[in-house]
């Protein structure tokens, strides 16, 4: 699978994850080294194996539906970085 990490891929990944990166060259090299190392897995025969998304073997227990008001809504609102009345203010999405 030998993948080459180039500027375009790094650009794409940082766009998808919505973050600016500093030293792009170092980052590219780090990613190349790390992701390159993952190739060791290609030698593992995983035929017929179920992916193990979680160690939990039980099935989900569904929650009963009894509405309950959270007792510290003010605590949530107190963390809003910017607000207008009770609403969170954010920059325009197309700005």
């Amino acid at each position, binding site marked *: 699978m030998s993948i080459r990490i180039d500027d375009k891929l790094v650009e794409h*990944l940082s766009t*998808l994850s919505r973050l600016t990166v500093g030293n792009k060259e170092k980052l590219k090299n*780090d990613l190349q080294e*790390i992701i390159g190392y993952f190739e060791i897995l290609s030698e593992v025969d995983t035929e017929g194996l179920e*992916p193990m998304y979680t160690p*939990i073997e039980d099935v989900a227990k569904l929650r009963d539906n009894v509405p309950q008001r959270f007792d510290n809504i003010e*605590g949530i609102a107190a963390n809003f970085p910017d607000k207008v009345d009770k609403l969170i203010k954010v920059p325009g999405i197309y700005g």
Partner: protein
Amino acid sequence: MLTNEAFKTMTLKDAMTYEDKSALVERSVEIIAKEDKNIRAFISVNKSPNIGIPIGIKDNMNVKGVETTCASKILKGYVAPFDATVVQKLRENGFSFVGKTNLDEFAMGASTEYSAYGPTRNPHDLERVAGGSSGGSAAAVASGEVIAALGSDTGGSIRQPASFCGVVGFKPTYGLVSRYGLVAFASSLDQIGPITKTVEDSAILMNIIAGKDEMDSTTVDRKIDFTEFIGKQFPKMKVAVATQSFGEGVEDGVKQKVREFITLLENFGHEVAMVDIDDLKYAVATYYIIAPSEASTNLSRFDGVKYGLRVSSDSLRDSYEKTRGEGFGDEVKRRILIGTFTLSAAYYDAYFEKAQKVRRKIANRLSEVFEKYDLIITPTSPIVAFKIGSVSDPLVYYMMDIFTIPANLAGLPAISIPFGKVDNLPVGIQIMGPRFSDAKVLGFADSIERQLR
């Protein structure tokens, strides 16, 4: 009158029956004030703690009304609006939250160097790291600043710093302790556990913090008395030592300690065999695909909209990118990008899905070993505490997790207990058992600890 020295060595077991709890808090606050300038185990210290048994809480767990920083700039100023379930339980059991302990940013690291608040120093050698990511909790316990502490363990983050700092660190079976209120790093791997001075203390803490939680779908309903085998005569066990304990990258001093440990076990009458668990060589790659994948999406919520840092801008897109670009440190960003890569549609099958299958394979292999043996022994870390700033290659860093990662991948209980020193630096031995054998793992570790004393 409780002296600082007496407090420093006081176990949780003794603290629980110690009548003057306010003296405990006073000693703890005093020692932190004195020692933490050097050790830097704490990110924040509670100026007026409630009366109770002083415990350190890793700063990726919520204590209502107190800042949760995850040692990241991006959460600066965030005041948790609710208690983590474990914190709630400790509250009910008379503990005092004297401070939030340092960690690698969002628990991503093995040295507590990747903290926006600077590294925590190893109490055994201030030039060296305390390990990580729960380095603050381990150093706080090792230095006697608190009676005990909670850490979180995703790939060794409780056990490795415990080993570096010469204390006990226990990672329970996945699902026994609620993660509600623990800021998620990798949800299918994260588990909260105790860091203590003795194995018995870990068992005592487990009895307090474990249990099915309606707020966490991944907790299981199992009644376990974690102290069941504590202080008991332990029967003869069949113990497997992974041959990988003597493999490449393991320091000679550490290898020597493992040999001594084997001799000790044999002297105690246990049956020890060397077992080649070859699939372990895939553990690091598997882990470093799965953990960043989950982390990349767990950390999406830090976007400057609802809480924490917001770098303002005219456009939302720009605000997102700058907030996250400036708020996250390099290691966190590296892992977010790796995880974004391994989950992206074009690479999902080759990386994420493949890794989850290899994970199954590793778990199956470990189960196989447990069909023949009761426990698996390895060193906790291939190396002892290294000098602050001495490791810069991320992959070298990742390789240090080789022995601790398998327990997280398979969801197994594993403990690190101190076993002497190499060059005056503590070495930890890891004991791993099958799922839900937590009481047995603790009991076995306790029997050895007692015989060593």
